[in-house]
């Protein structure tokens, strides 16, 4: 990896520290979580709140399901040459009672994971530009 600065691929969606979290919101009235952030209207039909607080979502969860991308996705995805297949997981967050998609860290294949396996959130490069390395969240299997 070059000495370029690391910046988020999508601004404001996750913290950029060593123990990163996705940044969502929580309805201050009914407690529903939202990711991506929702700040204008609560989508719970029992609630008409317009008040939200920013929250860091749980950075660990369990795999709900998983797959991979064997072919280069179309733009706006920016693929390295040559293209390397990558693994994708849908992860259940217990406290938030929601499932969040994301790539799985480089080097982990579909043969290495199972439904129900615990994972944690980390940051890895999504692609590079001339100026910086665009970082995204990825799921990493937890030992044990």
């Amino acid at each position: 990896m070059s000495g370029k600065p690391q910046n988020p691929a999508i601004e404001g969606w996750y913290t950029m520290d060593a123990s990163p979290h996705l940044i969502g919101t929580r309805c201050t009235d009914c407690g529903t979580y939202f990711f991506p952030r929702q700040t204008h209207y609560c989508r719970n039909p029992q609630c008409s709140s317009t008040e939200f607080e920013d929250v860091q979502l749980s950075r660990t969860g369990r795999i709900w399901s998983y797959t991979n991308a064997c072919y280069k996705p179309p733009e706006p995805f920016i693929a390295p040459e040559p293209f390397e297949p990558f693994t994708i997981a849908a992860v259940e967050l217990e406290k938030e009672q929601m499932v969040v998609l994301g790539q799985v860290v480089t080097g982990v294949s579909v043969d290495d994971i199972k439904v129900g396996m615990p994972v944690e959130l980390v940051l890895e490069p999504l692609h590079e530009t001339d100026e910086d390395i665009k970082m995204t969240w990825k799921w990493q299997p937890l030992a044990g």
Partner: protein
Amino acid sequence: MSNEIAILGAGMHPWGKWGHNFVEYGVAAAREALADAGVPWQDVRFVSGGATVRCGYPGYVAGATFAQALGWQGAEVNTSYAACASGSQALAAARNKINAGECDVALVVGADTTPKGFLAPAGGYRPEDPDWVRFYLGITNPTYFALYARRRMDLYGDTLEDFAAVKVKNSRIGAHNPRARYKKVFSAEDVAASAMVADPLRLMDICATSDGGAALVVSSLEYAKKIGKANAPRVAAISTVTPTFASGVVEMPDIATDSAAAAGVEAIAYRSQIPLKAYEEAGIGPADVDLAEVYDLSTALELDWIEDLQLAPRGEAAALLRAGDTAVGGKIPVNASGGLACFGEAVPAQALAQVCELTWQLRGEAGDRQVQGAKVGITANQGLFGHGSSVIVKA
């Protein structure tokens, strides 16, 4: 049932990659449906079109474009733009018009022309658009189909051979459908030899996109009787319900599900909700169904739909498949048309194509694909942004 309408005629332009304008497909389907109905075009007082943005300013505002192509004659028009449910919404609009007593006969048309390769979003940097975000992160349509398929394997013990068997079954029956795009019979070995796209799904597990057009001529029961078609198949129910919060299965194009963390909120799977209203409206249950046309965007998804329609208990669709029960000649044939596996998806036409197949089946006119004694059929489909539909047709 008071809100039933008659299906007087059905028509389809064959599916394929013909490279023509979508209006040609829609007009060909409409003319076939009108001829099948024996209804003069001049008698149609409502034209209801299914639209997509792929066909320009949403299908040139679809109902009007088809009406103009067939020759303006002063009918009222409607356009429904609802992803995979566009055709069903267009049909529902026609039903409402008829049942309101505002017209006797309506024409419902959907047609699509599709680009080559992946369907991709507009460019730029647009993180507010969930469709843009998921492609930027490398998440394509097959990703979602594969997530559902993998759960079937890990939770219910479905196998790659089961998924391949869906393709084999559908290709065998689709080979007898002159309107299908793919008429080649495939073996399990063919499926296994095709390239892995999104593990566990291979190229032959995933449906293509297609050009195509489908149309229905529908009327009041009174009008059907008047023209000697009192026995025409009837639309007994149309469900176009949205999901119920909290939608608990991650759906295209979203990056996350709803949260079910609030008090009194449960995670609910949308697909299973779609047919409930249809069954209730038709006053029947799953046991009354003789055949189903379901949206097999992937082979594994056909198995999910069988359970969502309650034609098998959750996790047991593969057992039904293995016993041959979902093939024509089995207990509950699924996708006797050959399904999307043999058609490819032509979005605003597809929900209507499903109803066309049920119409021919219930009239006993499906030839080598005929489900013997079919009296009740159900369709099911689901698309982007909380659109889905299910239609019940009765003989």
